[in-house]
């Protein structure tokens, strides 16, 4: 996808070894379990799989997962880009500390994230109690799901945008400014277009990650079917109640969503790179 890796087409033995090693690794680690999952989901036949996938609580949980993930992505794109911007373009005390904090959500066990969010935003907390007075529930309702997703996916957009922003030529911005463009116009017309591919990368990665998120959501969502039960929690319930078939069915759908998202992303990137070259 990224063009030929070696300048000559001569393939040495070490190239071959390296290639088969990485193919074998990806095969054993990623492809094999996925094939096993798809195969097992088809064991009962397509009709049974379809029936399991189209059960009302399954469909509801899928819709909830996708809608909360999309809201999360919309927020993440803005806050993530803004954070990267602040980190790259400004100098301020504590900048290194802030930079280090960004990856923390990756290091934290997601179940701890859930417990922590309940402690901070739950009905017993100061913030939760404040919103409760106005009849707004944060935890054990949809806002809780979105907050949990925002937390666990926060690094994706920031870390995708940051390096591009560092490398970005300021000449274009300067040129636009000399031509009399306002800061807003420069940002919208010059900065955003060059950041767009990396923003999309971050968005797609956080979307895919959100589809499968389980540990934090099961702690904060409330998990009531047809209300606050997301797909991963539904899947977990089916496994626990001895219905692996139903669980696998919905898992395949989630997997397809992630796969298509990432595929579209790769195609877009490929296309934009070719576009740039010509």
């Amino acid at each position: 996808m990224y063009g030929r890796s070696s300048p000559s087409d001569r393939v040495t033995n070490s190239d071959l070894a390296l290639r088969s090693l990485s193919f074998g690794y990806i095969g054993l680690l990623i492809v094999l379990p996925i094939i096993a999952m798809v195969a097992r989901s088809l064991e009962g036949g397509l009709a049974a799989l379809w029936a399991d996938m189209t059960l009302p609580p399954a469909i509801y949980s899928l819709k909830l997962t996708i809608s909360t993930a999309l809201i999360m992505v919309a927020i993440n794109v803005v806050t993530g880009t803004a954070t990267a911007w602040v980190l790259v373009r400004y100098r301020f005390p504590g900048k290194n500390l802030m930079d280090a904090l960004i990856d923390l959500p990756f290091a934290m066990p997601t179940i701890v994230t859930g417990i922590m969010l309940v402690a901070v935003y739950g009905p017993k907390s100061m913030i939760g109690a404040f919103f409760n007075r106005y009849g707004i529930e944060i935890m054990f309702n949809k806002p809780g799901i979105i907050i949990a997703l925002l937390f666990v996916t926060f690094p994706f957009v920031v870390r995708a945008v940051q390096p591009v922003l560092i490398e970005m030529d300021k000449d274009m911005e300067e040129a636009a400014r000399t031509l009399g463009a306002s800061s807003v116009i420069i940002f919208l017309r010059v900065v955003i277009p060059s950041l767009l591919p990396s923003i999309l990368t971050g968005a797609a990665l956080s979307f895919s990650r959100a589809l499968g998120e389980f540990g934090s959501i099961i702690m904060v969502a409330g998990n009531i079917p047809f209300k606050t039960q997301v797909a991963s929690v539904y899947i977990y319930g089916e496994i626990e109640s001895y219905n692996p078939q139903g669980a696998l069915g919905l898992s395949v759908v989630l997997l397809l969503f992630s796969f298509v998202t990432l595929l579209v992303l790769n195609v877009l990137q490929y296309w934009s790179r070719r576009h740039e070259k010509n």
Partner: protein
Amino acid sequence: MKKGVKWILLTALFVVGIGKAVSAKTDEATLIFAAYTVPKEAYQKEIIPAFQKYWKEKTGQNVKFEESYEASGAQSRAIAAGLEADIAALSLEKDVSRLKDAGLITHDWKNNKYNGFVTNSLAVIVFRPGNPKNISGWEDLAKQDVDVIYPSPKTSGGAMWAVNAIYGAGLKMSEVKTGKKDFAYARQLLKSIQKRVKVMDKSGRLSVTTFENGIGDALVTYEDEALLRQKQGKEFPFIAPGSTILIENPIAIIDKNVNKHQTRNIAEAFLEFVHSKEAQRLYAQYGLRPVNEEVAREFAAKYPAPKYLFNINYLGGWNQVENDIYGKNGVWTKIIEELGR
């Protein structure tokens, strides 16, 4: 690929080798014990040490216990998938039946004086100190200003007991009043309570945590879980409704594994021990109702019997419950769908 196979075989040989080396020692035996989470304290602090002492005195042999505590369903699945437990002590009969269906248990494990059970408990309602919402029975959980907590029956044995208790109590109470089981009334009771459920955690333990975090006005849980909290010095008031379900916890030897580990004699001795008066008293101190009748009489004041107590057979046994309540067209499944509309 061939290399991979070789490695797997080598690893397997290595593991088998270790297994052999361990079982060759006779002055020490190992028993793998897999249980559900609620009685963990009772086993770890009292029952297992007491058995180790008893066995040492009787045979001079040291018994080492490898213990695993997991939610009942997860534990059952783990054993079915290859966790080589010699003994399984689970929350629900159906989780043991599953091991029999999987061919791991080959004897009739229910054919003993206690029908295969080791302890009993009740489904009870925990409320806030001072009982601000005046909760005295199942009907109060259906009130508009009461938020209820119990886990998801999809993942938790505890929640199945809760739902069975509510539905069964509806049947029982209507039967007491009119002489006939009123299925519509029981369904309506369950539906109006399910409607008040605020959070459905994955396990009974997590639901207790959620309740302790200040969510909900009432929590449906095991009596022994509530008593355990009280034993820890927490304020955890609860009532056993006039009509509720008798929870019966099974224990069984896993034939395939004891044959493989050659631990049948110790496993059988352990099963006998947990039914002894000594062990039954220990359970009773940890909030579990004894199945040994003599010990049950000793603790009658601590564990009064609710007036209209029933067990799973009142609902037709586990197979029927799984179908009638939790199956694709089961009462609970349909209620969830109706409430979702």
